[in-house]
């Protein structure tokens, strides 16, 4: 069965402040959706709420993966159900090597007794690291500790490649990347495009979309998706900015939950 991911009427708040005011979105396997919008409009909250960050509380709505409501699940269950979030600010975990972490994550998806063999794991990891032009030394470094911004982002993509998720959410994966790193990350994403996998790319720049062509582009303001279109919408936003959207919709302040 092809992946079918549906967000329906999602509302979420942080510390009592409502940030998401009813998000509706449908992603099918094979599709790439981009969510664009200025800062402070709720884009990253959407990513965090879907993954289940403890600071965000979902107050209404559902997010179903092939009919199962992810929002009813614990964070790790959502991941095992096939959701992957490449984070804007990945945590640093001192003392845990990247390779130990990756192996634990892979084995968390396998039955006890059928863990991935060390040799097979290393072969896979090294192969993907090579695709991402990562220094092999990063396998033995402590997870994200002392990684530059770009190295962290590549490491997020490495995890995506090894974990083979059904729905990938990329939260500002392009921030802090130079043009070479951007190309490498984009190549990694493109290599993962498949009929079984859907992508949700959150960004406020169009430049990533020069490398990854989306099927659908959505504009988020005030905690809602206010406009949707095809790749041409991203192009127009790049050329003209967001003001025309605000004018068209009569929005004065596009942000949400700012005090």
């Amino acid at each position: 069965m092809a992946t079918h991911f549906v967000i329906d009427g999602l509302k979420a708040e942080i510390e009592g402040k409502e940030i998401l005011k009813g998000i509706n979105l449908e992603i099918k396997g094979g599709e790439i959706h981009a969510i664009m919008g200025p800062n402070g409009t709720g884009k990253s909250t959407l990513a965090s709420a879907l993954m289940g960050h403890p600071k965000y509380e979902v107050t209404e709505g559902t997010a179903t993966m092939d009919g199962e409501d992810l929002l009813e699940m614990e964070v790790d269950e959502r991941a095992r159900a096939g959701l992957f979030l490449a984070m804007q600010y990945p945590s640093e975990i001192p003392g845990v090597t990247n390779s130990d972490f990756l192996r634990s994550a892979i084995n968390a998806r396998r039955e006890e007794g059928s863990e991935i063999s060390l040799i097979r794991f290393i072969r896979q990891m090294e192969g993907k690291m090579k695709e991402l032009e990562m220094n092999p030394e990063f396998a033995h470094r402590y997870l994200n500790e002392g990684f530059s911004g770009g190295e962290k982002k590549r490491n997020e993509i490495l995890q995506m490649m090894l974990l083979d998720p059904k729905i990938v959410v990329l939260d500002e994966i392009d921030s802090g990347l130079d043009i070479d790193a951007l190309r490498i990350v984009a190549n990694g994403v493109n290599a993962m495009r498949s009929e079984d996998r859907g992508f949700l790319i959150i960004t406020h720049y169009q430049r990533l979309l020069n490398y990854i062509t989306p099927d659908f582009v959505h504009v988020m303001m005030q905690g809602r998706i206010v406009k949707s279109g095809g790749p041409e919408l991203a192009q127009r936003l790049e050329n003209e900015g967001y003001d025309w959207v605000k004018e068209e919709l009569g929005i004065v302040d596009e942000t949400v939950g700012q005090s």
Partner: protein
Amino acid sequence: MSTQLTTPTDRNSAEELARSKGEPEWLVKLRGEAAELAGELAWPKPEKVRIERWNLTAVGSYAKPAPAASLAELPEDIASLVAEGTENLVVQRNSGAIWRGLSPELAAQGVIFTDLETACTEHGELVQQYLFQAVKKDEDKLTALHAAIWNGGVFLYVPKNVEVELPLQAVLYNDAEAASFAPHILIVAESNSRVTYVDCVVTDKAAVSSPFVHPSVVEVFAKSGSLVRFGSIHSLGSAGVDMTFRRAVVENDARVEWIIGDLNDGNTLSDTKSIMKGQGSTSDVKVISVGNNAQQMSLTTQAVHFGKSSDSNMITRAVMKDSASAIINGITKIEHGATKANGVQTEKVLMLSPKARGDANPILLIDEDDVTAGHAASVGQVNPEQVYYLRSRGISKQDAERLIIYGFLAPVVSEISVEAVRTQLQQLLERKLEG
């Protein structure tokens, strides 16, 4: 057959026991004096821990050990601690050594590695020069009591210029709470020698349930240009009180490296100190500990700098569970005249329970201007952002926390150069963290 030592602080019985064991007269005298001191002196007073509330009287009675005919006689849990195929091994069970082995190659180089009681008889003059010179018998009730009743133990002597590649190992265990268990470890490394010594001090937990006390002393003498690596893992039972003083005297350009795993289940007083007498002497101390249940611990690391350009580094990392409490002291003392000395220390505590307690007390005492020194201390809980991140990759909450806890200890564990010790430490850590 066992000889009773009813009152450990009694001069006559201490001397009588020593004579009955056939100890040399200088040692009989030392024990007698120490027994008398033990009656007069007060217990040591570590910061914020009232050890006099612990059960300190259960020192037990001397039980004459029966030598083991082969290592196969060791209980399984104990045998698993022995590095595979090692020839260089001392095993103490309760009050005395039951096994001692040294390879002919090392013996031919003049290395001595045996239990300390045997060494007092066979190498009396040599032992006498060092025994109770780094830790004095009259410091407090603990050192006096220990001097009066110590048994078994280890003596390691490495002659000048001899480099011992393989680690020498001791396993010291108790499996009878009524028997006194008070090993003394004495290590002498002559000029430009090199040696690694590792030990495990453990209780056969199935066999011991009543209170016991393990008063223990370690003395290390690192002569000029020598390198001594000392690794020790303590895993005594919950009914036990472990009181261990470790001290090294480090001469010119010599180096001492301590790796201590305080993984007892019972109350623990652990004090590890390097006295850097010599110019260019260096010391490195790494301590890890896990506290659980209602365990109380006082963990102290100390570096005392006398030598010019001496250098010390101390790291303590502790994980506290349940209602365990640990007072962690780091004391860097730089004496007047120790110019260009450098002393650095870090104490970190990870709290896994709201009822656990961990205090980190870094103390710098500096009587010289031309020095560098630094300290860092932190007490914290498992970071929920880190747990979220790991869980977002499908790792269960329990496994995520486990990874973070092991990660917290990893910078110390991964530094352990002796593989056998690292493996043992990991095993015991797992036992304690998962238990």
